[in-house]
């Protein structure tokens, strides 16, 4: 049985090696009831490995993973009574209809809320009457999302859940997550998109090449939130030395390229000294951010 008071998820020095490759290196993390925790990392960082080990699909090479105090590898069946999982990619049984798959997975999970299932089918605009093989990737992902949410499990684990969903459905999905949070469900989700994690998570663990490089609340990871600015100018270049929040600045030949974290106010004032002919601001990809923040520290070390 679950031990009361134990964290919902506990990873202790969790390590996973595939042959000589260490995909996950001594990852330690506690998730408490009602929290929404994001696992952030670029492709190949070890997110899927973490979640598959947590779900008992992979055997840990070291350390341990627990769900409600139950060991993920030793007691998977008991542990899985209290969780639902959304994989990043959902393979269907080609001969079963979407409705049959939902029904099967709900029953195997130990029961589900039929009313809520119908509501989700409606909200995600999903047609459950087709055969599995005829669903597109987005529709397959909807099966995964509905099957997991409809059980109202106390713990929701998700591996890049919105991959394959279009923007409208992604918004609907985030709405569902907010509802789940209101119901007190605990959520552990992985993503390689910072803004997605920001939209729903209280706390974030950042994985890079199998190593957890940061952990904290969103506010604590504020510095990660930078924007990439690309601008063109004529005449004399602006002086950007010492402008707060600016990193990685490149200024030459009429082109400016830099990252800015926090408020862009000081940067804009500094740019105003020059004659700017064009300016563009966008959220950088996680890879770019990681180059900006962690490579420097790695070089220094």
């Amino acid at each position: 049985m679950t031990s009361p008071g134990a964290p919902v998820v506990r990873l202790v020095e969790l390590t996973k090696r595939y042959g000589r490759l260490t995909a996950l290196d001594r990852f330690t993390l506690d998730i408490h009831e009602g929290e929404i925790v994001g696992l952030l990392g670029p492709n190949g960082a070890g997110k899927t490995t973490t979640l598959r080990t947590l779900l008992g699909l992979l055997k840990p090479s070291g350390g341990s993973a627990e769900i409600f105090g139950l060991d993920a590898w030793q007691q998977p069946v008991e542990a899985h009574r209290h969780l639902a999982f959304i994989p990043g990619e959902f393979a269907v049984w080609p001969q079963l209809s979407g409705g049959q798959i939902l029904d099967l997975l709900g029953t195997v999970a130990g029961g589900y809320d039929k009313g809520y299932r119908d509501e989700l089918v409606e909200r995600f605009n999903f047609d459950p009457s087709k055969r599995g093989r005829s669903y597109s990737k987005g529709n397959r992902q909807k099966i995964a999302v509905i099957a997991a949410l409809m059980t109202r499990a106390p713990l929701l684990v998700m591996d890049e859940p919105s991959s394959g969903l279009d923007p409208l459905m992604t918004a609907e999905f985030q709405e569902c997550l907010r509802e789940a949070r209101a119901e007190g469900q605990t959520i552990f989700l992985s993503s390689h998109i910072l803004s997605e994690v920001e939209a729903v998570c209280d706390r974030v663990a950042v994985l890079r090449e199998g190593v957890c490089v940061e952990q904290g609340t969103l506010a604590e990871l504020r510095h990660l939130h930078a924007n990439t600015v690309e601008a063109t100018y004529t005449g004399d270049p602006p002086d950007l030395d010492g402008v707060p929040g600016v990193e990685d600045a490149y200024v030459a030949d009429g082109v400016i390229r830099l990252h800015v974290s926090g408020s862009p106010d000081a940067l804009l004032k500094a740019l105003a000294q020059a004659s700017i002919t064009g300016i563009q601001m966008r959220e950088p990809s996680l890879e770019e951010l990681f180059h900006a923040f962690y490579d420097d520290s790695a070089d220094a070390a």
Partner: protein
Amino acid sequence: MTATTPSSPRTRRRPAAAAAEPRSPARVWWRAYRHHLRLVRNAAIAWITALTAISAGVVATFDDRYATEAERQALTAMEGIPAFEALVGRYVQVATVEGLTLSRWGMFGILVAVWAMLSAVKLLRGAEEVGHVEALRAGLLTPWGLLASVLAALGTVYVLFAVAIGATHSALGMDAATSWALGGAVALLAATFAAAGALASQVAGARRQAVGIVGAFLGLTLGVRLMAAATGTAEWLWWATPFGWIGYLHEVDEARGAVFGSFAVLVIALVVAALMLARRELHAGLVGDGAEIATRPRSVRSQGGLAARLTAASAATWGIVLAVVGLAFGLLARDFSEAVADMPTMVQFAAEIGWIGIDTPEGVVAFVFVLVTLLLAALAAALVVGMREEEATWRIEHLLVRPVGRLRWLTSRVGLAAVALALLAAMTGVVAWLGTVIVGTPISFTDGLRAGLNAVPLAWLFLGLGVAVLGLAPRLTAPLTYGIVVAAFLLDFVGGFVDLPEAIIDLSPFRQLAAVPAADVDLGAALAMLAVGLAGAVIGVLAFCRRDLKEA
């Protein structure tokens, strides 16, 4: 603050990779062709090696096995017996190495046809079902181009097949022209059934439907050959089926031009028909796309229910094949035994190698049930491969992340597979009995049932060995599991020809089969097979519960 140069290699890597995506139709097509070639490669190597080796074995051992005039006379005695030709195809000039080898392909050709049609359907319909084609077509590939790439990939394989046969057989001393004619005709037979499979895939909405259609085509072409043999007089009937053409490669027939011409016309016709029907829409088929299903589909409400449904789906197709084979053997048992009864030396020779009483219907049923046993062993392998497919596609995850344990998942699948094998074995025996009743020389019902059930320990043995492979070397499940079956069969079938030591041939479980119903079940051998099978299953299940799940 650090300044990076804009041309840092890190930032350049992505756009460079994107540019590497082929954008011209020719390159997309080439990529699709190579993709399909890769998909069929392993199976092709196995089939080509096995079939070429068996046939080459006939060539290599001919002089030793039929050294004396009397032995060649005994072979010739089998020529022109309708019931025999109905089973093995046209049987002429068999006292020569060329004639005997060509005549053997009446049987081997059926294997070629089954392989070719399944691989074509798998590439065309199966790929759609798992979504590969969507990825392909997201590029610049048309349905026409896709089909052409599949056919080109299969064609490449068959050219290699022809070369393998031609080169080995002529190297082993068979007449070169005949060797290469055989290679070419076998490749064309494969192409015929691959093209038929491609056509069926365009017509059908789903893979199972396509297999059904092309299976019916196979049944029809074999049925015509059976009729041709049975009537014995109507030569045009032999020419009405590709399996007849294979029988007219003999030098005496002087019909090679007609054989190749017929094959060429049929292959081209089938390919053109398939290309004309190649559709724009995915998943659509002339006979309904099968995407919509009944408004009240039978629900699947448990892991066990799902396991039963998946097992039944595989077993059903094989069940039809087994029923047809069992019935055909029952129907032919009388003619065969009567024809053989006129050849006492043959009866005696068969008895010496364990096939007693083949001049009686019981003896014939026992003899031909070796093939039924092979089919059941192959089904055992197919069922294990089906289990592995759930893991390889990662569908197993849906169950294992819910409260379903690995032990329960695998034991229920293996248990159901064992039940399905036993039921089909019994069914085949009963159907063979029915066949003997229809032609008026019945064996007893219990004899039929015993003939079927005699295959069960062997089928379970291969099931257990397959589970061991699944547990210990999951990524090798398909090649190793089928490989063990084929190796064991060949050891028994070819081992005697190439003078392997008895002790080694005896390792083949097929060698240990008793000639039931003519003889009694060999309890010792049956128990040994059950014990080894059980051990394999236990090892496999334990290993499966202790290892990582592995994707394809």
